[in-house]
């Protein structure tokens, strides 16, 4: 956390007071403790660091709401439910052939093991199957798109089975 304040020409003591007060008030307003704090105003700099272990005072438990580090290649937010992943790197097709009816569309009920798409890799047509009974609540990949191994293609809500 870094806060930068425009440099002022006030004498040092005043500037120091201002920066310190700023730090105090920022920390108080925050309600929790950051890992590090740095406030600079002209020549005056206040920096603080806290250890990870230190209990963040009266703030709620941080571990509970801290999201895990997101893998770089994962889709930003996956909806809840069971994901159907690409079984191989290749090209995803929603339908058995160009122009044909897609295997599934959003809202469809599917059964575990039911074919819901195809990934083509080097002329190999690898069927994609539903991992659970449920309703298709989201399709994440367009027809004909390149997909990596393990990439989430669609999401099934098993509650809706």
């Amino acid at each position, binding site marked *: 956390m870094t806060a930068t304040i425009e440099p002022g020409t006030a004498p040092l003591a005043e500037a120091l007071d201002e920066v310190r007060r700023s730090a105090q008030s920022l920390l108080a307003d925050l309600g929790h403790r950051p890992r590090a704090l740095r406030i600079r105003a002209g020549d005056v700099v206040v920096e603080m660091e806290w250890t990870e272990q230190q209990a963040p005072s009266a703030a709620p438990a941080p571990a509970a709401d801290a999201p895990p580090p997101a*893998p*770089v*290649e994962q889709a930003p937010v996956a909806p809840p439910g069971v994901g159907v992943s690409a079984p*191989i*790197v*290749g*090209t995803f097709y929603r339908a058995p052939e160009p122009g044909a009816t897609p295997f599934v569309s959003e809202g469809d009920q599917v059964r575990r093991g039911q074919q819901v798409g195809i990934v083509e*890799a*080097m002329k*190999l047509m690898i069927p994609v199957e539903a991992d659970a009974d449920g309703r298709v609540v989201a399709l994440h990949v367009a027809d004909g798109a*390149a997909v*990596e*191994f*393990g*990439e989430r293609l669609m999401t099934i809500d098993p509650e809706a089975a």
Partner: protein
Amino acid sequence: MFNTVLIANRGEIALRVARTCREMGLRVAAVYSTEDRDSAVVRFADQAVCIGPGPARHSYLYLPAIMEAARQTGAEAIHPGYGFLSEQADFAEACEAEGLTFVGPPPAVIDRLGDKSTARAAMADAGLPLLPGTIEPVGDAEAVAKVAADIGYPVIVKAVAGGGGRGMQVVHEPDDLPRQYREIRSTAQSLFGDDRVYVERYLPAARHVEVQVLCDSHGNGVHLGQRDCSVQRRRQKIIEEAPAPGLPRGLVEQMGHAAVRGLLAAGYVGAGTVEFLVDDQSRFYFMEVNCRIQVEHPVTELTHGVDLVREQLRIAAGERLDVSQEELAARGWAIECRINAEDPARGFLPTPGPLTGLHLPGGPFVRVDTAAVAGGRISAAYDPLLAKVCVWAPDRPQALARMRRALAELSVEGPGISTNRDFLLTALDHPLFVAGTHDTSLVDRLTASHPREES
């Protein structure tokens, strides 16, 4: 030159190839298994594609996935590294079929030189000395016994399709031959799906000396001197050096020329290595050809000042060698130690696991090739090579002293992880190694006297 190169490998060699690509201004496309999601090459690459789960046969060895990744990334060339698909003629062929450049020799050459029987025939034709034995596979126990009697015991029975230290058997006594012949054929069948074997004289006290060769696609070839790789545990090299210590000057040149002659005759293109055995009377015998960059290539780079991966890429792009044999001069001495995450006291059992701390050696004339980082992990799914520590010095004693210093600087921490660092230091200090008169039996001497840790 290409725009994008796909690196069909993992670990330190993937990163090493990526570094040279970057320096050459080539776009780097990496592939990774789910085990390697956070690997160094993934972070380094311009683009990275997940090609499958941890087990290599479903990812790094799975041809359709690699080819798809190349297509998706728009790669024009594929660098296979070492291991995995690097010496699979099928893979080189698939690249050709897709209009991709395989960074390595043509498929037919891989085929011919990968089969030990045809490789021996090709090298014999080119005038390279072979150990007494058969060139053609031997069809039955009686024929083997006859050949063995002719060339004298001990003999070694080798699978035609073998490699990497697997599929061979030393036979010391005629009485053992029938049983061991049957065993090796059955092993070869199960390992390689090919039970053909051949026989040659076994040299118990030989040195493993190999010659690095570069051949362009215009019929030019040069060699970059020798590497001695005699320090092996279970036929896996752990210490390599360049040049090979104690070889007569004439022999060095003879071997170099023989290697180039052999590979040019075979139609070789790219970087390749011709492995020889050298006996205690400084006679050399062709053993096999490796159709790829080798783990130990850095020692040659350090003595010759040549980036071998750069030369591979240039050759693959159809460029000519830009150095002549006369210009290629070795300077000083280089040694590589392979740091494996393994426990020498438990039969070199791999010790995968999280890496909580890692401090690598640095400073003058030290090079470290690794994909390991503190906070990462050594995967149980792949070989346990953790880092290659290489040093250069003007002469061998200084290089040895520098390697001891560098290895002492290395620290690897993690629950359950141990390394062969101390074992390497012991090997470096062995009087035979210090004198440069060791042979491939060095590690056996060390392990025979090595105290086994209680477990």
